[in-house]
C-alpha cells in the first residue's frame, strides 16, 4: 500500500525540484560578506555557526534514519527495553555545552568590537520618518532627505501597469543617496520622528532601530568605494516596504568635492525661499511635493481612504482657515498617522504644497502662499509649545 503512495509522490518531488533549479537566481542565497572589517567577521561567524549546525544536524539525522531503516517491525526488529543511561545523558548534555562555549567566545569578541564607538572620525545623524530618511552631517552642516526613487514609486502602485523588471534596483534606489567617504570610522546616530524604524545596510552589517525620542548609535568603516543598498527593517506602517537606503561610498577627494557642491545647493535653496513665486510655479512644485509626501495616504486624487486617511478634496481644513491648514501640515495631528512636516519640508516646499492643496482636487480657494510668507508664519507658529522645527529638534538631541 505504501509503495503505491511513494510511486506517485516521486514525480511531484521532481516536478517541484526541477523548476527551482532552472529559475532560481543563485545570487540570492546567502548573507553578503560586505565591505567593512566587521561585516566580514559577522559573515565568518554566520558561516561558522552554520557549519556547526550542519554537523549537528547530520549526526542526529544519520542516527535517526539509520534507526528508522534498521529497527523496523517489518524487518523483524524486536524492541530492546532500555530506557535510560546516565552516561549517555551526561555526554549529550556536556558536548553541546562545549560547542556553545566554542561559539560564544568569538561571537562575544565581535559583539564587543561592534559596540566600540570610540575614535569615530565623523558623525551622521539619521532621522527616520514615515517613509523616508533624513541625513544630517553633524560636522558639515549638510542635511537632506532621502526617499524611494520616484519612478519606482509610480511603478509600485497597484495596477500601475509598469513592468518592475526594467528597474535593476527596483525598490532599492532613492532620490538622494547618503554619500560618505571610504576609510573613515563613521558614527551613525539614529532617531525617528514618528514610529520605530530600523536602518539596515547588509553590506555594512549595521542594523539599528530608530526610536522616537531616543538616540541609538552604530558605526561603519567602509573599505571599498561603491554603492551599498539597504532597507528599513522594522515595520513602520503602510509604506514600510518602500523606504530603501542607498549609501554611496566615495574616495576622500571625491567626497570633499561632493561636500562643496552640497553647500552651494543649500545657499541656492535659501535664495529660493526669499524670492517672490508665481501661482503657477507654486502649483507645479506643489504637485511634486504632494506626490512625494502626501499621496501615499491621501491618494492620487486627494480622495483619502475613508476611515483611515481623510480626504484633501473638499476638506474643511484645506478649504478653511489658512492658519489651521498650515498648522496641521507643519505640526501634524497627535495620535494619528498625520505627521509633522514642518521639520521635513523646506519653506518653499511647504508653501508650494499648501498652495497646491488649496487649489487642486476641486478646492478652489484661489489662495497663493509665498515661501517668504510661510517662513514668517512658521516663526509665528513656533510660539506653540508643541512645535517641532529643525532648530529645536537639534536642541532636543
Amino acid at each position: 500500500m505504501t509503495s503505491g503512495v511513494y510511486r506517485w509522490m516521486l514525480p511531484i518531488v521532481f516536478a517541484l525540484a526541477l523548476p527551482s533549479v532552472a529559475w532560481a537566481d543563485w545570487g540570492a542565497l546567502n548573507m553578503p560578506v560586505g565591505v567593512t572589517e566587521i561585516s566580514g567577521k559577522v559573515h565568518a561567524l554566520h558561516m561558522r555557526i552554520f557549519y556547526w549546525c550542519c554537523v549537528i544536524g547530520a549526526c542526529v539525522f544519520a542516527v535517526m534514519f539509520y534507526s528508522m531503516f534498521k529497527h523496523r517491525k517489518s524487518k523483524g526488529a524486536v524492541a530492546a527495553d532500555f530506557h535510560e543511561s546516565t552516561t549517555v545523558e551526561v555526554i549529550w548534555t556536556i558536548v553541546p555545552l562545549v560547542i556553545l562555549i566554542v561559539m560564544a567566545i568569538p561571537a562575544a569578541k565581535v559583539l564587543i568590537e561592534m559596540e566600540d564607538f570610540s575614535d569615530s572620525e565623523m558623525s551622521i545623524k539619521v532621522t527616520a520618518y514615515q517613509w523616508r530618511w533624513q541625513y544630517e552631517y553633524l560636522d558639515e552642516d549638510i542635511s537632506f532627505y532621502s526617499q524611494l526613487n520616484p519612478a519606482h514609486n509610480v511603478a509600485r502602485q497597484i495596477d500601475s501597469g509598469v513592468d518592475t523588471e526594467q528597474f535593476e534596483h527596483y525598490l532599492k534606489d532613492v532620490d538622494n543617496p547618503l554619500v560618505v567617504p571610504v576609510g573613515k570610522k563613521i558614527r551613525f546616530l539614529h532617531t525617528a520622528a514618528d514610529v520605530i524604524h530600523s536602518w539596515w545596510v547588509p553590506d555594512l552589517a549595521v542594523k539599528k532601530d530608530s526610536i522616537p525620542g531616543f538616540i541609538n548609535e552604530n558605526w561603519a568603516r567602509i573599505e571599498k568605494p561603491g554603492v551599498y543598498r539597504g532597507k528599513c527593517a522594522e515595520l513602520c506602517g503602510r509604506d514600510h516596504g518602500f523606504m530603501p537606503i542607498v549609501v554611496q561610498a566615495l574616495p576622500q577627494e571625491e567626497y570633499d568635492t561632493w561636500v562643496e557642491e552640497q553647500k552651494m545647493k543649500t545657499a541656492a535653496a535659501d535664495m529660493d525661499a526669499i524670492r517672490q513665486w508665481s501661482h503657477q510655479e507654486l502649483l507645479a512644485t506643489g504637485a511634486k511635493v504632494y506626490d512625494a509626501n502626501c499621496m501615499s495616504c491621501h491618494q492620487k486624487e486627494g480622495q483619502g481612504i475613508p476611515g483611515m486617511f481623510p480626504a484633501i478634496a473638499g476638506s474643511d481644513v484645506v478649504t478653511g482657515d489658512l492658519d489651521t491648514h498650515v498648522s496641521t501640515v507643519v505640526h501634524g495631528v497627535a495620535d494619528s498617522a498625520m505627521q509633522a512636516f514642518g521639520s521635513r519640508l523646506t519653506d518653499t516646499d511647504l508653501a508650494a504644497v499648501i498652495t497646491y492643496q488649496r487649489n487642486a482636487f476641486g478646492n478652489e480657494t484661489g489662495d497663493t502662499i509665498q515661501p517668504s510668507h510661510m517662513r514668517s508664519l512658521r516663526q509665528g507658529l513656533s510660539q506653540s509649545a508643541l512645535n517641532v522645527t529643525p532648530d529645536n529638534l537639534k536642541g532636543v538631541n
Partner: protein
Amino acid sequence: MSYSDKAHDHPGHDEHDDHHHGPAPGLMRWITTTNHKDIGTLYLWFSLIMFFIGGGMALIIRAELGSPGLQFVDPMFFNSMTTMHAIVMIFGVVMPAFVGLANWMIPMMIGAPDMALPRLNNWSFWIMPFAFTIMLSTLFMDSGGPAGGWTLYPPLVLQMGDSFAFVIFAIHFMGISSVMGSINIVATIFNMRPPGMTMMKMPMFVWTWLITAYLLIATIPVFAGAVTMLLTDRFFGTSFFSAAGGGDPVMFQHIFWFFGHPEVYILILPAFGIVSSIIPTFARKPLFGYDSMVYATASIAFLSFIVWAHHMFTTGMPLAGELFFMFSTMMISVPTGVKVFNWVATMWRGSMSFETPMLFAVGFVIMFTIGGLSGLMLAITPADIQYHDTYFVVAHFHYVLVPGAIYSLMAATYYWIPKWTGNMYDEKLGKLHFWISTIFVNVLFFPMHFVGLAGMPRRIPDYNNIFADWNFIATIGAFGFGFSQLLFVYIILKCIKGGKEATAEVWEGARGLEWTVASPAPYHTFEVAPPIDANTVTR
C-alpha cells in the same frame, strides 16, 4: 475489558443511576456542557475552523508575494493580513487546539472523571468564539484591522483607527480564557490524580501541559498589563510608551517579550508532550530518559523567562545586556537538544512501524530540529543583527511552528481520533496527507532562509526582482500546503462517519490509561479510580 465497563459492574452502581446521564440533546448540549470531552471537542473544532481562516490570510500574503510589484492588495491591507494571520494562528489555532487536547486527554491520562472545574471549563471555551468574532470584525471596519504586527509595538500601533479598542478588548478576552483554562489544568493535575498516580508516573503530555499552564498563568497577565497601558496611552492621556511624556517605546518591547518569549514555549511544550507519547508507542519501547525529559521541560520553561531581549538586539541595549541575552539564549539549546536526543534514543533499537501519527511525529522531530538549529544561529548576536527582521527569522519560526506545533497537532489527531470516534481513520489517506504536506511545507518555508539571508526584510508586500524566484516557489508551496489541508478535514469527517472499528487499545504498542477505556471513550470515564500499575502507566 475496559475499566469503564468495570465501573458499570460496580455493586453500588444502581443506587447512583440518576447520576448517569448522557449528553443533553441538540444544540444545548454544546452550549451548556461541562463534560471535558465535549469541551475538548469544541476547542478542537474551533481551532480547525480558525486554522482555515488564518491559512486563508497566509494565502493572501503569499499570493501578493508571488511576484514583484503590487498585484492584489493595498499595503495597508497586506499589513493587517500579516498581523491577523499571526494573531489567529497563535491565539486561535495552536493554543485552543492544545487546550482542547488537554481537556480530552488529561483526565483520561491521569484517571480522573473530569476536569477539576467543569463550569469554568465551559466558560473558558465559550469566551473564545466571541473574542475572535470581535477580533475578526475589525477587518470589516472602515479603519481596517490591526496592521502594526502581532507584536503591537507602539507608537505604530497607536496609529490604528477605530479598531484599536476592539483589538485590545478581544486580546483581553483571549487572555482571560487562556488563564482560566490553565488554572483548570493545574487544579486537575494536582487534585484529580487517583492514588498511585504519582507526579513522576504522569504521561509526558500531562507534564508538559502542567509546565505550560504555569507559563500561561505567569505571562498572560503581563501581556494584559502591556495592552492596557497601550489603551490608556491612547485614550486616557498617559504616556507609558511615548518619549514626549517621559515614557519609552522600548519599554513596551521589554514587557511584550517578557510575555512573548514564554509564549513561544507555550506553543511548543505541549507538542513535545504529544511527540513523547507517540514515538514510544510506535517504537514499542518506553520513552528514553523520562526524568531528564521532565527536567529538560522545566529548564526550558525557566530559561524562557530570561531570554526575552534576544528579540530586541537592534534596539540599542547596553553591551552587557546583549552579552547576557546571547549566552542565556544559547543555553536553551542544551535542554532542547536533550529532548531531541531522547526521542532518537527512544527510536533506537525499537521495533518501529510508521502509521500516520508516527510519520507526523518523526516529521516533527526532523523539521523542528531544523528550526531549532536556525534558532541557534539567531542566538549569535552579531549575526542576529543581520538576520533580525528578515525572512530568515520568518523561516525559523515557521519551521518550529508549522512542521513543529501544527504537525504535533496533526499527529495527536491521528493518534487519538480512534479513541474519540471509535473508528480508525483511513490510513492510506492519512499517509498521503503526511507526504503531500511535508513536501509542500518545505517548498514553502525552506526558500525563505535564502531570501532572508540575501536581504529581504519581513512584513513587506513588494520586493526587488532578485528575490522573485524563491518567492514564487514559496508561493507554490503555500498553496500546495494550504489546499492539502482540505484532505485532513476530509479524513476527519470520514473517520467520524465510519470506518474500521477501533479496539480499546487502538495501537499495538500503546500504554497508558486512555487506552484502557473503550473506543469511543464513554461520555463518563473513571468514575471509579482505576488501579495504577505497570500496565496502566506509560513508564
